[in-house]
């Protein structure tokens, strides 16, 4: 099916306190498209978690949201350290975030599990010392 909209964002790696701007913008854009509230909620939370991960672990990256007639695809790409053990990273409660990050309310080890929880499909392509690309799909009923 043909793609009809793409939103592209650069995620600033130094800007931890205001991280989430891309997700908030996506929420606005999807609302303008008239998508169901619950779909918007799922997309924006999954994307926010990914955005925060890129800021915490990878010094930023890029986020793309493609809106198709039957699905929304979120693609988050970074040139960070990669994920050494994906299965471990997917476990709720596992985190390598530092104390500063935790003091802001993050680093609970729920980011990747939430991204999986709120999307219908999630693929993690990661190479240590090269980077990580996460592709998430949310189907539209």
């Amino acid at each position, binding site marked *: 099916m043909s793609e009809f909209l793409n939103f592209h964002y650069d995620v600033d790696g130094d800007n931890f306190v205001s991280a*989430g701007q891309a997700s908030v913008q996506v929420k606005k854009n999807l609302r303008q498209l008239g998508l169901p509230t619950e779909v918007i909620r799922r997309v924006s939370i999954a994307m926010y978690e990914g955005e925060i991960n890129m800021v915490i672990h990878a010094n930023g990256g890029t986020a793309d949201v493609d809106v198709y007639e039957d699905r929304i695809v979120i693609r988050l790409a970074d040139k960070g350290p990669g994920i050494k053990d994906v299965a471990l990273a997917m476990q709720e409660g596992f985190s390598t975030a530092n104390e500063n990050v935790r003091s*802001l309310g993050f680093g609970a080890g729920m980011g990747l599990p*939430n991204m999986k929880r709120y999307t219908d499909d999630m693929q993690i392509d990661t190479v240590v010392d090269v980077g990580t690309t996460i592709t998430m799909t949310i189907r539209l009923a």
Partner: protein
Amino acid sequence: MTAAELIEKHGFHPIVLPDPERETEGCYIGDLLSWVMGKACAGNVWITIMSNVNTVAVASLSDVSLVLLAEGVTLEQSVAETALARGVNVASTDLPAFEAATAIAGDL
């Protein structure tokens, strides 16, 4: 009950109320932001002591009806302005989270 009615009834301190007519439904208590995003439901009153700008982003994305800051926690002016701009209702109370939750339980 709307966010404004809940605040009025229980004597909470309104900080910003861009959406006073928002219906409140259920409650979630927590300070770890990913837990909130994973567990809170749209329309919930979210009781927390976490008050940085990320709190506002999480409230907006999770679509909660009201952020209720417990234990007398307040918002910095710049964070309050962000909440206002993003349509996030925020109020505070001197009550601890448990007491605040039990106070409003019958209204949700």
